[in-house]
């Protein structure tokens, strides 16, 4: 049983528009049997934070191409992408590079 994880989420480049225009979110992920990874985080965001048009944010079980993910200010490609295990106090940033956000 993993303990709850408190993380800081940030949306930018227009992605925040899908979250009622709110850029920063401090959230606590509830404890669950397996440790939290980014893949599960995306599902959680979709269920709990995303306000509209999920297809503009996620695609399959990853983010939509064109949306960048930074984990603690580093490219998520360096951190194992979807498999990265979230640590307490991690900072996850989503930046849309698509036209019009």
């Amino acid at each position: 049983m993993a303990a709850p994880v408190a993380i800081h989420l940030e949306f930018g480049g227009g992605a925040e528009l899908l979250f009622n225009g709110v850029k920063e979110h401090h959230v606590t992920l509830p404890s669950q049997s397996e440790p939290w990874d980014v893949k599960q985080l995306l599902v959680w965001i979709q269920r709990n934070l995303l306000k509209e048009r999920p297809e503009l944010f996620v695609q399959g079980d990853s983010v939509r191409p064109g949306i960048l993910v930074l984990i603690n200010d580093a490219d998520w490609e360096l951190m194992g992408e979807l498999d990265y295990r979230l640590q307490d106090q991690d900072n996850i940033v989503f930046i849309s590079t698509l036209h019009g956000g």
Partner: protein
Amino acid sequence: RYLSLLAGFPMCQVDEDYHDELERAGAPSVSKQCVKCKEATAAVVIRVGDTFCRGCFKEYFIHKFRAMLGKNRIIFPGEKVLLAVSGGPSSCSMLSQVQEGLSQNAHKKLRFSPGIVFIDEGGAVGQSAEERRRTAAELEAVFKATGFPFHIVPLEKVLDLPSKVLMAAPSPSEQPAGAYKTAVGHFLQSSSSSSSCVTQQEEKESSLPDVQESSTPLLQRLMASVETLTAREDLLSTLRQHLLVHTARSEGYSKLMLGDSCTRLAVKLLSSISLGRGAQLAQDTGFSDSRFGDVTLVRPMRDYSAKEIAFYNRLFSVPSVSIPSLDTKAPEKASIQRLTESFVIKLQADFPSTVSTIYRSVPNLPELNRTFYNPRPCCSVCAYTSFNGVFWVRTCDEQAAVRYRAPETADVRTLLCYSCQLTIKDMVSQSPCTAAGSALLFPKSTQEEKRKHVLVQVCCPLFRELVEK
């Protein structure tokens, strides 16, 4: 012409080469060290296998901007350069690079004198007056911090432009080959003799002037008269370009810097082909575009991918303001531009060389021969210069225009290039939806009158002189 483009396109060779690469990418052995300094922990993956640390990434990014300007030698020392800043990440990054370049010491310093222009498109994309004021104020704060002179211009202004905007003013005679060196020499002499720096800013600012009450509905009506999002985006970008060129010209700037990234340009290139602007590709996506004569458009950000820019802005806190545009939250298939973007970006996700392949084909596109026709025929809306007489000739030269005066019955559309014809056609097409709309807007008028109304009153005052005569 586009065969070369297609041949280089990854889709065509999907089977063998890329399969391997994909699998390798799937089992990443991504090094966590910077490939440049080989010491610090990497923060950014620029291309497959190229991992940079924060410091090296900054150096690389800054060097690239200066190299781009240095290599092309198109901006002369002391020249007035207008930076078109939309508030988006790419143009704001460009602004910060110019700032960075001007703050350098000694020989590396950029030597032109910049100004900023922001076109407030709120009226066209349906922002309320309150929202527009807020975004303008946000940007004003960013601009003030740079210390450069800036101009905030509402898009409504485009409706009052004189018809001359599109007439390419004669460019200050062809520059001989050694002109750049001579200019640098002169500049160095004059700046050493007088201590006053050219980049010294005059305290000149123009905040958002009050938009004329009547012009916002007029602009909205214009945008609403266009049926499809594709044509609407095309129209908006044309109007924006007119106003940018006009502002540059009336404020005495001879270069206009646009912040198109290479991702953006790759999308633009493919969507332009689909929109029927194939012949103008070289001008629309190249490093410089001199179709307006005395004002040259320059795209110094065309070597950066959208990813690099987003990372730089994030890591080095470059401020940008996100403003909703026409296609914000639009579904993938809402317009040709939107669809092309999602096609390119999706392909890029699996085949990381997509964008660079598309974008590298630009230099292979033929630039039209400027001396071939004199006077040159040019499209009355986008100023695209035809070189094979695809559309009816209208001369840019005032004197010759008298000779070639369009017959009174001439269809205005004959003065437009193929793509602008499509846009205008869409504007006056009679679908049930627009029929209802236009009946409201123009009661009791015939189709012909409606068309004239749109073209004359609303679309382009540029047409006014033509149709009235």
